[in-house]
């Protein structure tokens, strides 16, 4: 190629030099040819070639298309688009095809690119591959009727409900002159040059987004845009069911409980922008925003509406960035909800409700019921306060001032409704979630706990039972799509197409591990602590997983359950191994590992949480180890004082332990000498235990448990030589010896201790013990 190029240059040069006179013409011709090309380009751009067409005719053609299109959409989607294409741009279409052939990867899934380019080189209408975006009209999404989810969770596309309804038979009434189709320009395709667009990137779409999309390719074409349609009130029922109505299907698992009619979600102007403000909805679908649009509209005819409302978060129903597909549930049932459930229009209700007090409460449908209750309580309080302060007369004034405010607002209607929709959509896209439990863990669990607490309180108090409404959130199916960067045919090597979803690797970091030669003792200690911390975190993740299994179990299918149980067991074993420091080949693992964990505050909390999951033997082992090392642990706990959290799981465990274990536990706890020989002069172990709140409480619980076991077992009662009895004798002796100073106050005192001690000591010593350990209620 370069050689021919050179040849051309040489030829021209020759022509100039060798034949200056005769072949000037040739040269000039050569130049003239170039000129011709340039002229052609100029013509194309500015001159007659630019105005190929009478724009009015093109406009009319498009208008005809418009009327054809809605009908066509319902039947066959692809054809409609292609018809348009053929009518309006033959050579553009060829160009598009040519370009699309060049691109190897047809699935341009990078949303950033797609949005920037606004091109659909591949006009496919298979449901599987159509990339949707926020620009798509609702028609496009209705076409996507993908396969059902395995989970049988009907999901909704709120794009359906968010976008204004496309009027199916739209008479072209008010055509804005300014929005006529632009004259067509001829094409000068330069690959890689930025697309020339009639509208800049980022403009919200006009009403007719579907055909305009398919027309816009790299080269501009006349785009017919329809003027905005005025916001409509919900059409009378009879149009096809939206997915939102599918939610009113009785067996839908999305619906938990009927929406409490006492909570009308009326929007404040502040909240409007945050919700899907401009949604034009089918009746039967709850939308607070519908009512918000009517100025002065107060309250809501919610009670009249379909009570089965999605309680979940409104915003979670939006489709995400392109690449995501919204799955619809099964085709709508044959029987639509009864017509009286939807309001004929806001009109008749206005009169009714205007007479009521204007209560602008923000929308709270997306909140957890418990949260909502709290909020409303607070609001009630505030309102009561205001009422007390201002008197009843304020309300009338408030209402009128609000209406004045609406009338005189100079900043109203700066944004069109669809622009507001667009902004809301962008915000709402962030809200969608495939697994709200995971994504919003704190919020969900916090309010669940609150509810449990209040439920527990109510059970105790025998108060009126509140409705246990659960927060049901719609779940959107998330499809895993791996992004593959676009590759072009015929290019040498891979062109780096980097975008926000496919960032370039900037730094090549190599991980190097340090050598272990020059580690000081301090460093070793630090490392050890770090290792312990690391183990704690690992075990914590296991713990969180195990705690989650109950929920997963409920959600899973029958076949999966055994596997889940096995997994859970395995994880529990792993946790125990982590706690005890599993070392192969060692029969008796040392206590050291466990003690290290117990020295750290979160380690203790973790052990307290793990204990219920362990088997009895494992838990008993933990308990014994704790008892053995208790003084050390107490010393380490001086700052944190977290040990008492272990008391309740330990007490619970004690009830499952056999008497033998309890006996040996007592021995460990009190550091009692094995034989009944003369005891050591002092028992620092026991003193330490008794001086600590946790230690003393644990001891008392153990004693109490032992006593329970003893008294409940008639056989052992008679037998004198009982390990427990023996130990008790020694124990009481020890207890009597311990000085009273500095004894801790136990968390709880079991009631049967007096009877316990009365077996083993005489009256005098019993009184002594009672005083010392403050066993009698009155003494404290």
């Amino acid at each position, binding site marked *: 190629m370069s050689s021919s190029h050179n040849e051309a240059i040489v030829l021209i040069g020759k022509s100039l030099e060798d034949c200056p006179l005769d072949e000037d013409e040739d040269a000039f011709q050569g130049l003239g040819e170039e000129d011709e090309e340039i002229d052609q380009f100029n013509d194309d751009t500015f001159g007659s070639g630019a105005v190929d067409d009478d724009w009015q005719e093109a406009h009319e053609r498009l208008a005809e298309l418009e009327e054809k299109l809605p009908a066509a959409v319902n039947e066959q989607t692809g054809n409609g688009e292609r018809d348009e294409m053929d009518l309006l741009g033959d050579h553009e279409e060829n160009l598009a095809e040519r370009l699309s052939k060049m691109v190897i990867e047809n699935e341009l899934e990078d949303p950033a690119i797609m949005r920037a380019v606004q091109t659909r080189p591949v006009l496919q209408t298979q449901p599987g591959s159509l990339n949707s975006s926020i620009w798509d009209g609702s028609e496009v999404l209705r076409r996507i009727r993908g396969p059902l989810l395995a989970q049988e969770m009907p999901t909704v596309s709120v794009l359906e409900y968010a976008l204004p309804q496309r009027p199916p038979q739209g008479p072209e009434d008010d055509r804005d002159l300014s929005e006529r189709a632009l004259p067509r320009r001829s094409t000068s395709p330069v690959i890689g040059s930025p697309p020339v667009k009639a509208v800049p990137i980022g403009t919200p779409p006009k009403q007719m987004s579907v055909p305009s999309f398919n027309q816009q390719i790299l080269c501009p074409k006349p785009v017919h845009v329809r003027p905005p349609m005025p916001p409509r009130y919900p059409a009378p029922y009879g149009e096809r069911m939206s997915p939102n109505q599918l939610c009113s299907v009785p067996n839908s698992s999305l619906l938990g409980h009927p929406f409490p009619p006492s909570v009308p979600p009326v929007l404040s102007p*502040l909240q409007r922008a*945050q919700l899907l403000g401009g949604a034009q909805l089918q009746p039967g679908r709850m939308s607070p925003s519908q009512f918000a649009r009517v100025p002065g509209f107060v309250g809501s005819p919610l009670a009249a509406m379909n009570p089965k409302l999605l309680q979940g978060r409104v915003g979670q129903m939006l489709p995400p960035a392109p690449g995501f597909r919204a799955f619809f549930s099964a085709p709508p049932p044959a029987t639509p909800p009864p017509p009286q459930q939807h309001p004929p229009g806001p009109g008749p209700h206005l009169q009714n409700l205007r007479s009521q007090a204007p209560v602008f409460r923000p*929308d709270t449908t*997306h909140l957890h019921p418990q949260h909502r209750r709290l909020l409303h309580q607070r609001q009630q309080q505030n309102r009561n306060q205001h009422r007390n302060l201002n008197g009843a007369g304020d309300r009338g004034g408030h209402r009128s001032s609000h209406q004045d405010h609406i009338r005189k607002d100079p900043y109203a209607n700066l944004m069109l409704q669809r622009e507001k929709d667009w902004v809301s959509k962008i915000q709402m896209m*962030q809200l969608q979630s495939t697994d*709200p439990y995971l994504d*919003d*863990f704190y919020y969900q669990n*916090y309010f669940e706990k609150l509810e449990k607490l209040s439920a527990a309180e109510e059970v105790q108090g025998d108060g009126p039972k509140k409705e246990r409404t659960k927060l049901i959130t719609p779940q959107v199916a998330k499809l895993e799509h791996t992004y593959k960067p676009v590759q072009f045919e015929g290019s040498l090597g891979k062109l780096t197409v980097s975008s926000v979803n496919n960032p370039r690797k900037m730094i090549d970091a190599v991980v190097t591990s340090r050598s272990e030669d020059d580690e000081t003792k301090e460093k070793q200690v630090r490392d050890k602590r770090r290792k312990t911390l690391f183990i704690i975190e690992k075990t914590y993740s296991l713990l969180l997983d195990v705690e989650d299994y109950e929920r997963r179990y409920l959600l899973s299918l029958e076949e999966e359950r055994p596997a889940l149980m096995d997994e859970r067991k395995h994880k529990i074993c792993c946790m125990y191994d982590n706690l005890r420091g599993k070392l192969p080949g060692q029969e008796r693992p040392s206590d050291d590992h466990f003690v290290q964990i117990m020295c750290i505050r979160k380690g203790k909390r973790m052990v307290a949480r793990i204990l219920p999951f362990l088997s009895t033997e494992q838990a008993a082992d933990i308990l014994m180890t704790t008892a053995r090392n208790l003084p050390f642990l107490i010393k380490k706990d001086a700052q944190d004082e977290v040990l008492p959290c272990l008391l309740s799981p330990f007490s619970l465990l004690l009830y499952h332990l056999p008497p033998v274990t309890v006996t040996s536990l007592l021995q460990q706890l009190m550091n009692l000498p094995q034989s009944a020989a003369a005891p050591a002069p002092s028992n620092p172990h026991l003193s330490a235990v008794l001086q600590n709140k946790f230690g003393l409480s644990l001891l008392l619980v153990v004693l109490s448990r032992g006593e329970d076991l003893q008294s409940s077992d008639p056989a052992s009662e008679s037998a004198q030589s009982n390990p427990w009895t023996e130990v008790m004798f020694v124990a009481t002796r020890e207890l009597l010896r311990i000085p009273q100073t500095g004894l801790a106050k136990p968390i709880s005192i079991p009631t049967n201790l007096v009877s316990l001690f009365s077996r083993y000591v005489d009256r005098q010593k019993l009184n002594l013990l009672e005083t010392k350990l403050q066993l009698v209620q009155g003494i404290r």
Partner: protein
Amino acid sequence: MGLVMPLSVCTFSGFFKSFTSPIHVLIPCSEVTSVICGTLHSVDQYLNIKLTDISVTDPEKYPHMLSVKNCFIRGSVVRYVQLPADEVDTQLLQDAARKEALQQKQ
């Protein structure tokens, strides 16, 4: 006043959502620090905070804030946020952070 905010990956977004009673926000503005107390209206992924019904703890020092009822505070200037202790479950918060870390690793 319900809180509407994105379920972003950040745990703290969800954490902020659960508040119903007023919180204190401490704002530094170069040398000047002011404490604004208000009810949390919304938070976003950058932890920008919108408060309603605000009051400034030191009105004499910042008289210009007397008429302001609602405010939007850019997240980057917030130094502290003081929350009512009884509305915070630290254990749950830790769990949420751990779960999120797990998720990110996966």
